[in-house]
């Protein structure tokens, strides 16, 4: 079955927002804007030169996916341990997560995209809900200070540009869909909106102090005076975005390996080896 263009675009949106939420603590408005411009330039260049056809590009994407999978598995495990499963050990969380990642990735690209599409409706609904319920907590005086203020613009921008290029490399070369600037602008707009929402509620100083600022703003919310502790809404948002990012990264690795390993038996051995390697390395990082 062919993958629709909209499905590719939605997947791109979800993965970008996921990486944005992961990096939000270290970002400023200026670094978000510059990183978006730089990554757009890179994508244009990538498309113009048709780099995705080269073997070296495919190999590099596989290596980047592997690094992202290792480091982000560590990040998401810590996130789950901090916010959802507080009583569980890191090993149990990362092992369960790895099983779920391997399960979905082995189902194939089409199934994966369909699952992401389903989850996207839910995620977009959650983002809109989050905007609605946090509006009363916006303090405009937080925006009167210099919101472009930054500590290390170069470092922030370089790291985040890399994070913005990655979803493109992960999704578009696989799906044969032509990249559209409008998709990019929608994700940029969402990044800026979420960032401004957080800054207007927490202020610049607190935004850089809290580990998960997007979740922290929900800790302040109390609906009708009795519905509280709705941090689970943004937590789910984080969880889905991170999970799909990891699944797609793993799928990229499998996809590259299947180009060279034709026998199913050998590929299965490689999969088991990968599973153990990722699990052990992610534990070592922790």
């Amino acid at each position: 079955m062919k993958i629709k263009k909209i499905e590719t675009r939605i997947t791109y949106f979800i993965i970008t927002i996921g990486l944005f939420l992961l990096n939000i603590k270290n970002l400023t408005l200026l670094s978000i804007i510059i990183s978006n411009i730089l990554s757009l330039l890179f994508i244009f260049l990538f498309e113009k030169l048709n780099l995705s056809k080269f073997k070296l590009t495919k190999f590099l994407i596989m290596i980047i996916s592997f690094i992202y999978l290792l480091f982000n598995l560590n990040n998401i495990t810590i996130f789950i341990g901090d916010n959802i499963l507080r009583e569980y050990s890191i090993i149990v969380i990362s092992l369960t997560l790895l099983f779920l990642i391997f399960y979905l990735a082995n189902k194939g690209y089409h199934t994966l995209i369909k699952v992401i599409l389903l989850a996207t409706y839910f995620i977009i609904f959650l983002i809109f809900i989050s905007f609605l319920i946090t509006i009363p907590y916006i303090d405009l005086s937080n925006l009167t200070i210099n919101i472009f203020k930054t500590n290390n613009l170069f470092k922030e921008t370089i790291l985040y540009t890399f994070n913005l290029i990655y979803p493109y490399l992960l999704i578009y070369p696989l799906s044969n869909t032509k990249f559209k600037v409008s998709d990019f602008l929608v994700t940029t707009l969402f990044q800026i909106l979420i960032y401004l929402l957080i800054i207007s509620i927490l202020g610049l100083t607190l935004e850089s102090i809290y580990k998960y600022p997007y979740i922290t703003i929900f800790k302040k919310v109390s609906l009708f005076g009795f519905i509280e502790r709705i941090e689970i809404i943004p937590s789910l948002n984080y969880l889905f975005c991170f999970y799909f990012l990891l699944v797609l990264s793993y799928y990229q690795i499998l996809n590259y390996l299947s180009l060279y390993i034709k026998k199913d038996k050998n590929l299965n051995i490689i999969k088991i080896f990968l599973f153990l390697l990722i699990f052990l390395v992610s534990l070592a990082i922790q």
Partner: protein
Amino acid sequence: MKKLLILIIIIFITGCDSYIELNDLAIINTIGLEKENNNYKLYASVVDITEKESLDIPTTSYQVTGTSLNQIIDNLSMSLNKKIYMSHLNLLIINDSIKTKELEEIINFFLNNNETREDFLVVNCNNIKDIIKKMKFQEINDLIENNSRNASETIKTTMYDVIKNFYDKKNIYLPSIILDSSISLDGIKEFKNNKYKEIKGEDIIYLNYFLNKIDTYKYSYTCDDNKYLYLNILESNTSFLTKELLITNEIKVITNDCNYNKDKIENIFNTNLKTNLEKLTNKKITIKNTIRGTYEN
């Protein structure tokens, strides 16, 4: 193979492993902290779940000492033989012994503790032990809530405000409470440059204007013997968005014995407000009022 995989996943995702009985939790609703000879003294009001028949929330107070906050919490957990549960923390009481260094430790403790939320009130009191023993957190919270809402004679400060002001290097304002025969407010304490300073009386109202925390309050002016102008400030907003300080008030005239017209009332109110606010800021102050009520007799 698939069935085995599903079985392994099911074993791992069961939620019973982390299950804790309610009896094994020490639910803390109030914490009092003071520092004495380089040691922290922590007073905690813990919900007593053994008393089931009472309509009120029965609590027992405990006292522990230690060199750091984490150590005290561990000590408390050990002495109670229960897991400390601070999700329902509603009040933190500190006294003048808590200075910048201690405040930073307290803030770090709560920032690193994902269980607690930073929406609980923080108050200053120099008699923490008695307050924790004799009073319920609800009475103190209600006192501050009602006072800030109806008279603007205190400042409702949550842990979140303390964290924000601490890192923004701004002054921290804490409601001050005293316990005589009953509990009452004793102005506010301003924490600035590692020192506490008392602010009392009408100054709190003007400070509230400056912090944009005015809810409602009453203003009275004596024009002649036994003749009063009595105003109810229903709503107020202080805007910092422009270079000047823009204050908008919605005022209702309750008593106008002096027979002043609208302009005169506005003039009296604005002059008083401006004079007091000029002590707090160098900015140009603009006041816009909407006055309604019986001002034309």
